[in-house]
């Protein structure tokens, strides 16, 4: 497609960086924003004395006290809804939901309330709410605790959804979310919490919402992914290079809503082949949305049907071998890539 332009330069990082884990980068973003704006407060289960189930908030309770770091009982519907109300009053709540799975009991407050506030009240009242929560699977946590249904939120006008795949974006996107005036769901990821990377020191550094990132440049195939699937895709890209001499470009979506179709289309119009990968089920999923937009934006550029890979469409089983068969592991992504490349 000829009319596509190059995406604007999205990185605004200052010069110095520090190596840290994804978890530490999130913590840094929280600390900086708690310092930056008194209206910001954290609320969630076990985020104080216990320091967070996944230790993201470690130390913040000590540093900022119980008023800014609120330990909530197990009452997701209550404290998510409470945060919507507080946000309507101008506070900036940052809610931690222990894992994505537990937001289901609060779904009504998110979809029917948070997402509707501004529009339904005619623009008179806003809802600067952040909900951060990890998706992910792979530790035999089984059916009720292994889900990645972040695209459900991306389906809803009124919500924004971001999903950082690197420590830099963990900091940058979380900060952008907290500073945003609308409800933003920040989808973190269990297996990436311990991953290390370079993170800009500049406290004004944010990753703009709605801008994808080319995580690896290539010429023969575009792999589009977000969250943990980016890591899987990068591994597969290396394999494609070494085993098949195929140069794969990997696009990390970073935001699911708004979705940066532009960056994806630019890439596909260059490579002419696209594979979409996601951690969750792909029926009606992110890959479905991205594939639909690719075929519309790049119909004439495509040399093969757009491929898709996701989790096998079963509730996650417990047994290790069944779990492995269910996950969108690199073998499956590689198989799908070969299929799209026509070398299978």
């Amino acid at each position, binding site marked *: 497609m000829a009319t596509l332009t190059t995406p604007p330069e999205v990185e605004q990082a200052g010069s110095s960086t520090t190596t840290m884990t994804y978890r530490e980068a999130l913590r840094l973003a929280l600390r900086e924003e708690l310092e930056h704006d008194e209206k910001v407060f954290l609320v969630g289960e076990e985020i104080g004395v216990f320091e967070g189930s996944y230790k993201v908030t470690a130390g913040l309770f000590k540093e900022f006290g119980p008023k800014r770091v609120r330990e909530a*009982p197990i009452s997701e519907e209550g404290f998510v809804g409470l945060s919507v109300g507080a946000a309507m009053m101008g506070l900036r709540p940052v809610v931690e939901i222990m894992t994505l799975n537990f937001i289901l009991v609060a779904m009504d407050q998110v979809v029917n309330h948070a997402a509707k506030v501004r529009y339904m009240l005619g623009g008179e009242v806003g809802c600067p709410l952040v909900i951060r929560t990890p998706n992910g699977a792979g530790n035999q946590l089984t059916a009720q605790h292994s889900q990645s249904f972040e695209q459900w939120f991306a389906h809803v006008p009124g919500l924004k959804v971001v999903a950082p795949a690197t420590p830099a974006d963990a900091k940058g996107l979380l900060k952008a979310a907290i500073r945003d005036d609308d409800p933003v769901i920040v989808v973190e990821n269990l297996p990436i919490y311990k991953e290390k990377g370079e993170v800009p020191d500049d406290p004004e550094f944010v990753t703009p919402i709605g801008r994808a990132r080319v995580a690896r440049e290539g010429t023969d195939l575009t792999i589009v992914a977000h969250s943990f699937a980016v890591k899987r895709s990068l591994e597969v890209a290396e394999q494609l290079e070494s085993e098949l001499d195929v140069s794969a470009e990997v696009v990390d979506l970073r935001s699911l809503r708004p979705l940066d179709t532009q960056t994806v289309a630019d890439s596909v119009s260059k490579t002419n082949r696209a594979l979409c990968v996601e951690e969750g089920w792909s029926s009606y999923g992110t890959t479905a949305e991205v594939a639909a937009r690719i075929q519309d934006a790049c119909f004439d550029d495509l040399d093969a049907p757009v491929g898709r890979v996701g989790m096998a*469409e079963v*509730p996650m089983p417990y*047994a290790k071998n069944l779990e492995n068969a269910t996950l969108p592991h690199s073998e499956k992504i590689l198989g799908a890539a070969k299929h799209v490349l026509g070398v299978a």
Partner: protein
Amino acid sequence: MAQTKGSANARSSNGRRKRTKKEEDSPEVARLREHYEMMVLIRLFEEETERQYKKAQIGGYCHLSSGQEATNVGACAALLKEDVLFTGYRGHGFALAKGIDPGKVMAELFGRVDGAAHGRGGSMHICDAEYNYLGGWGIVAGQLPLATGAAFALSQEDQPYAVLCELGEGAVNMGAWHESLNLAGIWDLPVVFLVLNNIYGMGTTVDKASAEPEIYKRAAAFRMHGERVNGQDLEEVLEASDRLMTRAREERKPAVLECMTYRFRGHSVADAGTAYRTKEEVFERQENDPIPAFGKALLERGAISSQDELDEIRSRAEKKVDEAVEFAEQSADPDVDTLAQHVYGDPDTADQFARMGPGSPYGERELVLSSGLGSS
């Protein structure tokens, strides 16, 4: 089920009287010995579970019942086989107390095909339809509406049975608690909500989480009977469970039974359990371990004749745990070709999905659609 309080009379002045023939024959006393043995079995099973977890034979979240055995056994002892049991995710003790074969439970923890859920569920989702144990559930308070619904079904079909629904004290601040108790109240449903108050929901104490931390009192909001018992005393738990389950069966009245208990281990095997409570506190609680206390009481009462008999009980339980591990080890991994089995159960399902193939995501046809998605 007979009430058991009276058997305390059997205690002699020196507390070391040899068991009389009469007591030996008494089914009540024999039952108490069985309950004791079951408590020992659960403790040893959980200790073995932790070892197997550390050997990576078991994965995922794994929540142990150690310290709470008197509640598991006392409550399950009040159940008829037809009564229905629902629990949260801390379910190994309940599964064993309900009578499920330890091998089937261990095989599930190992993720094997002979496990209680055929390797699909793992530690949090043990179940046994034959014993009417309709599941361990992993979302806090998620099982409450289900249990209420099971009670509804019993009531609707005039079945003379009742439902026991376990939950932690951390679950009572969920909307599901309020909605379930209200429904059970207005529709006279035969369900007993068994609240295991072990003081901590992960690292949060009950008085920090609950505006009314005496949970049994909350039943009053639904004009429902609520009471609290010492959950470290098997006979107290049994007496109250029995009375309330009987009432639920016969009078169709729901109730809340709060058992004060304590978990000796961390929230799950991954939690050392020391960040939010002192070692001294745990130590002090372990000093009041319900198992030796109950063993001692039985000994004093003559229901158990000697230390030798206590040791015998322990070795029998050890043997059962060893056999459970052996059974689990020998059971096969589930066949990957059965991955999509039981996603649905209707026999028409495969046919209904038959035309979904074209344009499928990679691997879906092979892994999911071709195996029929049904129960075959």
